């Protein structure tokens, strides 16, 4: 076993997901299968190989710090499920 149900539940918590018992059962088997497949990478010796995170060597893309028009508040709030016309509202956190 590459991954246990307990580990899947922990990862799901990190990803802010909940899984039903049925989902957990199915997902654990599928993830185990997929993670086992990744083992084939172990065959390759990559000790001296640099990692590629981006295919071109880009340096920082700087720009002038200029003031531009931003999204009007009404527009920014339009897609929010709960708002009061001025702010995004969420359950109480303190």
């Amino acid at each position, binding site marked *: 076993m590459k991954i246990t149900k307990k580990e899947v539940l922990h990862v799901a918590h990190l990803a802010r997901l909940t899984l039903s018992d049925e989902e957990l059962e*199915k997902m654990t088997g599928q993830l185990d299968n997929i993670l086992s497949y990744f083992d084939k*990478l172990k065959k390759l010796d990559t000790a001296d*190989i640099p990692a590629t995170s981006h295919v071109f060597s*880009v340096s920082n893309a700087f720009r002038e710090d200029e003031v531009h028009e931003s999204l009007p508040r009404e527009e920014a709030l339009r897609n929010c499920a709960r708002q009061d016309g001025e702010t995004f509202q969420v359950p109480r956190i303190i």
Partner: protein
Amino acid sequence: MKPYELSIAQAQAMMDKGEMSAVELTGSCLDRIDEVDQEIHAFITIDREGALAQAEAADRQRKAGTAGKLCGIPLSIKDLLSTKGMRTTCGSKILANYIPPYDATVVARLKKEDAVILGKVTMDEFAMGSTSETCAFGVPRNPWKKGYVAGGSSGGSAASVAAYECFASLGSDTGGSIRQPASLCGVVGLKPTYGRVSRYGLTAFASSLDQVGPICRTVEDCALMMNVISGYDKRDSTAVRQDVPDYTSSLVPGLKGVRVGVPKEYFTAGLDREVEAIVRNSIEVMKGQGAEIVEVSLPHTEYCVAVYYLIAPSEASSNLARYDGVHYGYRNLEADTLLEMYKRSRSEGFGAEVKRRILIGTYALSSGYYDAYYKKASQVRTLILNDFKKAFQSCDLLISPVTPTAAWPMGENTDDPLAVYMSDILTISANLAGVPGMSVPGGFTASGLPVGVQLQGAHFQEEVLLKAGFNLEQGLRLGRGKLDIS
């Protein structure tokens, strides 16, 4: 010939001569959608009034002599590109009601050139899939055989173009999502070099792999679309500052002096015989047009699926963290605490494949596993990139199949995600290496399903692909074939 059957170039010529208006052309596509989309399920959102208004505006521009490069041409857009004021779902319940307040750069560029946007098309949820079957708002059918998949993730884009519902579509390609559905639906699809086209307003899946590109019926139309969407954008820090050529100037007959590489690792076990025969035939056609055929090797091809399915889900797990129900998207309104709100909104909003990839990515990036999975995959990615660099020292482009098989029946392999991932083996390396890739129709199987041929080039060598694709199209003369539409 009905107006919707024309190519972009033909329709432009007719409108320029005053033989047809953009309103007539748009009406023809809208009628076609009414006629066939209940069978094809390509569209999620159809904007009739908006499209006709854009067409009227296009006619005015043409009359005034200020017509843009795509003036009056009706298009569809994959539903993960932001369209101002038009619902953009990403094929997910979590964005079922999301109306973007801005246009993606590529959409703004199409509008600036007076194109007509008919609506938004189906796709795998958040572009994660190879069949478009994970779309929450209808699954596109293959117009050549309706019980078969249209491919994915840009399945609605390819199906809408193949079914003549629009002239071209914008798709996105993270691991083959433009080229694979184009191949399965018998149309042309081009994934540009990473950085050639702006990703601003493209919903992020795997940011180091994603690229927007056109799906069209002809190579020429593809060049016309590339002329409009390519180029630097200050809003995408990975868009490259490099001049955009006139891509139509590469559409010249003859392949003399062009070295075409045949990567031997792409012709191995698992490749369907009919698919192989079609690709081999295309190689012969190009040889007859003067191309020099050389065998090349991409020795790390067998590791591509593992590398891709670590890197793409890792980036996705980070990108999709933004769907927390706070600012936009679905929110569970019954949750009492913030944590519960996050968890319930995400769990109710995302489908199974998206959850699976978020879990793989979160696991691969989590402490204790990062070196063994994400870092290892990024190192092997370097080896894959080096394979391509080496191959392009001895050839100008690579020719291969796009997929190991033609389209398959809907509903297969839904419980075996790894089996579906394996079908991406021939397309994902282009994304890992950032090189351009194109699918051009190569022929049909005995049962009438289309099969594409993949052309891949070195970075920023889209012109070589378009030239080779144009010659292949002219040399094969496939004809229209018969769609499975009543």
